[in-house]
């Protein structure tokens, strides 16, 4: 059961380890993005894969429920929202089905005063605006050291003004369309709550197309840890900015979330990076980079970000017994 944010990539992430370890698969793509999975079905035919090894059933929640609750299924691999992850965990409770859940996140991207600012700004932009922020490990909370906050924010805004939002098929486009009207409504609603709760909203000036689902890259400053935009996953191009003074405070704020999927640290000081990485309760910690993926490296979360690891040798474990 795979999400709509990286349709073919998530398909490969599930199907490859399952097939390598000798399992056969029933895949349910997300209802808003079924096309590359259906093209993949043609690839299975082209590769002469024996019939039945990969099956693809399209549909929405009801179809997903039928897959998860089918007594002939031995293992459920799910990537998606924490909300649906809970439903799946309930549905398989008391059965002998194995489950791996890769769920939401609210990652902290932590910038220290000794970080190379331009690199950090690129990392912040990549962390939250990559794939319109539809990324479970997106760096959606920027924690910036107070002494450099003004400079980092000024350069971040300058960089955001140059982001090109528009036609996904244009090779110059940096930010494409929000995946669905439903998701756009959710992003708008949470952004309005951000304003109501007293955070200051700034969006990059850009012309948005009239048709389709669009949201300008946006940052919120003056965000506190109690604000909903600092606690809930927005899953869109919206960054919440918080500040800190000491590394200890950065760790406390970074870990003050129900999630624990990823984190980023920007600093010139290696010992501090290692110390921080050790303290952060996150499955992946990036140092002086963000959103880097390696298929041979395990990926997965702590707490409400789910359980099990995917990728590399660790990722095979979920498909074995």
């Amino acid at each position, binding site marked *: 059961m795979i999400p709509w944010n990286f349709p073919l990539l998530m398909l490969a992430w599930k199907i490859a380890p399952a097939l*390598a370890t000798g*399992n056969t698969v029933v895949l349910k793509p997300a209802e808003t993005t079924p096309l590359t999975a259906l093209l993949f079905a043609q690839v299975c035919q082209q*590769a002469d894969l*024996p019939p*039945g*090894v990969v099956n693809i*059933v399209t549909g929405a929640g009801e179809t997903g429920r039928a897959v998860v609750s089918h007594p*002939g299924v*031995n293992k459920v691999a799910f990537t998606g929202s924490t909300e649906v992850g809970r439903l799946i965990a309930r549905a398989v409770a008391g059965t002998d089905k194995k489950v791996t859940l890769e769920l939401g996140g609210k990652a902290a991207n932590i910038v220290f005063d000794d970080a190379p600012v331009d690199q950090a700004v690129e990392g912040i932009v990549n962390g939250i605006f990559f794939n319109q922020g539809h990324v479970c490990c997106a760096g959606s909370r920027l924690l910036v050291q107070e002494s450099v906050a003004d400079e980092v924010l000024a350069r971040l805004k300058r960089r955001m003004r140059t982001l090109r939002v528009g036609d996904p*098929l244009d090779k110059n486009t940096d930010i494409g369309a929000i995946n669905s009207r439903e998701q756009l409504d959710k992003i708008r609603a949470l952004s309005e709550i951000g304003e109501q709760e007293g955070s200051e909203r700034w969006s990059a000036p850009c012309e948005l197309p009239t048709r389709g689902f669009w949201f300008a890259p946006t940052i919120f400053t003056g965000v506190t840890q109690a604000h909903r935009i600092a606690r809930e996953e927005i899953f869109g191009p919206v960054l919440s900015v918080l500040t800190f003074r000491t590394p200890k405070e950065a760790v406390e704020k970074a870990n003050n979330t129900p999630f624990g999927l990823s984190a980023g640290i920007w600093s010139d000081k290696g010992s501090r990076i290692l110390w921080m990485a050790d303290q952060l309760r996150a499955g992946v910690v990036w140092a002086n980079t963000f959103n880097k993926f390696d298929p041979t490296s395990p990926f997965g979360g702590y707490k409400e970000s789910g359980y099990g690891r995917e990728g590399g040798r660790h990722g095979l474990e979920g498909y074995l017994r």
Partner: protein
Amino acid sequence: MATSFEYAPAPESRGVVDIASSYGLFIDGDFVDGSGGSFKTISPASEEVLADIAEATEADVDLAVRAARRAYTRVWSRLSGRERGKYLFRIARILQERAREFAVLESLDNGKPIKESRDTDIPLAAAISSSITRAGRTNSATHSPVRPTRSRWVSPGR
């Protein structure tokens, strides 16, 4: 303050993809009509309807699970890790060969920029398929597992 550079449009051609007007379910190696209704998938950038997609019912899912079980029992679980790896590697190669087609289709259906689907999604999907091939080969009768404690490396099916 920096202002946005003027860029001439540089659209990737849609001509590489061939989208059918409707799609069935992929069960037991073939596209079949589902027993339920259908829904539309749209391009989020234009709200254009791309295709009609079958909505799988419980009965359809049951057929798919049965097909998967048959393939597991009769064919797939009997192959060595090395043999299975050959199929995965072949799939990875086809993904690479058809990468442009996949990238355009992904950007159309999902709304993500072509430079991301082209440079991240599709290459990583192919890389996972080929890298796991190497990892999966250790689960073979002809290869002993790297760690002896993992000699229980067999698949979860019955």
